[in-house]
């Protein structure tokens, strides 16, 4: 089935003919679509006259690009050094348990949350830290996790 990606055309038009545009262009496309499917990448390649391999290469190189559908809320768990020595692993276990993720999964079945590890959120003095969408939560304990996630589930139900 051919998906319609014409909603990307406005973005593509803005970037056409400028140097060094591939990464911001793909970022904007991802913001619009939620993730970059192979078809979406092929569409961009064709319209922009860039080899599809280049686009796929960039998409797989940077951790920011997502090749699978993402949950409504992105939960980033900081794996920086300060968080690591402050039991970030315990926080991660609590997140996995609260989200009921199976091994190898990162998105909840209801597509409400996607869990991802990030190298460092730069809030080391508040370790251990997680960031949900644009909000940072610091000085966490595993016990605090279910309560924090609940706030996001609640908004969802309303």
């Amino acid at each position, binding site marked *: 089935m051919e998906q319609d990606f014409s909603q990307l055309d406005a973005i593509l038009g803005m970037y056409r003919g400028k140097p060094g545009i591939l990464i911001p262009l793909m970022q904007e496309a991802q913001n619009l679509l939620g993730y970059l499917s192979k078809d979406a990448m092929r569409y961009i390649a064709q319209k922009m006259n860039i080899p599809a391999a*280049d686009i796929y290469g960039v998409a797989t190189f940077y951790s920011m690009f997502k090749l699978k559908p993402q949950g409504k809320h992105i939960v980033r768990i900081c794996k920086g050094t300060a968080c690591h020595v402050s039991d970030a692993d315990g926080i991660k276990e609590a997140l996995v348990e609260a989200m009921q993720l199976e091994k190898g999964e990162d998105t909840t079945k209801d597509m409400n949350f996607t869990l991802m590890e990030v190298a460092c959120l*730069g809030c080391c003095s*508040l370790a251990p830290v997680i960031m949900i969408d644009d909000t940072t939560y610091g000085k966490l304990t595993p016990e605090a996790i279910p309560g924090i996630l609940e706030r996001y589930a609640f908004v969802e139900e309303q």
Partner: protein
Amino acid sequence: MTNVTVKVGLASCGVAAGAMEVYEVLRHYQQSGAAIDLQQTACIGMCFEEPIVELSGGTLGTLSLGKVEPERIADWVEDYRRGELPQANIILAEKQEATRNSLLDGQTRIVLRNCGVIDPKSIAAYEAAGGYIALQKALSMKPEDIVEEVKSSGLRGRGGAGFSTGLKWSFAARAKGPKKYVVCNADEGDPGAFMDRSTLEGDPHNVIEGMIIGAYAMGADEGYIYCRAEYPMAIAHLKIAIEAAKAKGYLGKHIMGTDFNFELHIKEGAGAFVCGEETALMQSIEGKRGMPTIRPPFPAESGLWGCPTNINNVETWANITWIITNGADEFRKIGTDKSPGTKVFALAGKIAGSGLIEVPMGIPLKDIIYKVGGGMKTEKPFKAVQMGGPSGGCIPASLLDTIVDYDSINATGAIMGSGGMVVMDEGTCMVDVARFFLNFTQNESCGKCTFCRIGTRRMLEILTRITEGKGEMEDITRLEELATNIIKGSLCGLGQTAPNPVLTTLRYFRDEYLAHIQDKRCPAGVCTSLLRFEVIEDKCIGCTACARKCPVACISGSVKQVHKIDQEKCIRCGACFSACKFNAIRKG
């Protein structure tokens, strides 16, 4: 009542600690008729005391309150306006004793001079603090004299390697134009480092002004700030600052009425540590995979789109305005002969005063930790300080007299790095720390060089094995051999330094490796596979709480009888340990 100024610190760490709520309360308080001048600022570095509110203009002089509660802040401001001392957590005070006054004593602020003092979103505030005066002075100088001034200041690159900034500028200045670029490296990929984030959030104009001066000195007319996307506030403040500077004629065409033009862009990183490496960074700006390329040619000859390019770190750029204003000689009065000036460090981990500090080069490590950093966070004694992130190493207690300069830190096997300092105590396992960093570099290796790609993976496998109690003595030799080969066989700094965390822990904490390998024991009690949970028979009352919590049903015993853990089946999850209310389970 006097009209007082109330400043709320609204940098990332402040906001994460709840500073926005405090600000909202104060805004309502102001709207209800209180004559206060409510201002925003960024981070003064004491992240562990956030949210922080500074009061000034009253009879008590300047006071900073820490861990401010939104419910009480309006009362405290009210007290202050009446000339009464608020019953709050006073961390800094101009006219009296305060708990954290001493933490500022050991610091010298060049880069951070405006951070936490001015409103970073206001160009007027920056100008009032002496901003863009350095640019005016620079534009009246000959470009080569500026390069000469920076050279004689002895400023060394703060991004890690410590190369002479003036020398690097002279290469780019000499290169043939007409098109040249300057780049600011704000990728700050080291886990445990947040100096550049705070600098950009707290004083973006200072970095921008430094870049404009550099561009004029080297003959560049276009620049990029490459900032990691995980720093949304830094990017937002930069955007505001660039627009304001354009409107004021500090950026754009005919800057301050001269013939000099300079255009500045922001590029957001996309989440790859290796993009902090300068050649990879340029690939990434060009929209490609961020793979390092062979040097030479150096960026000064052939950088962005093949044009001469000069790349400096955020903190390097942030030193320039001070040097131009005050002169190279003044700069050289701070720090040591070979490493003049100051260094910003991000203190984190098991230290009481975690946050951002700026100290003169030459200060001993122990002064940073016990004076400026306020000592250890808990009773547990100091074990090591990690410097330089994944490229650096762990410095043990016996070397705490080491002074902070590029050469002395290198001699320990660690590196100065960009300024992350993570303090570790006896509860930290050094083998686990080494494994943590190797896991990081292994993940972040771009894959171009075989030794880096596969060698780091082999090292990680060995370290994992050791932390699981499956290590053998030959593994230590294997680690050392792999380390040597990865260093030799890698193109860029990522691979060349990746083994450092392992080499330094092997050098200073070999005993801990041996305990894991020979005694199958983790002295810090961190590596779960080596833990043992046992029931202390005298204390167990047979409440069955542990048996009910055990996910693998390996605890036997009936009600009111002493329980027993089957060590064969136990998965060492620690559920029984947390479940027991009678301290009847021993972990060790």
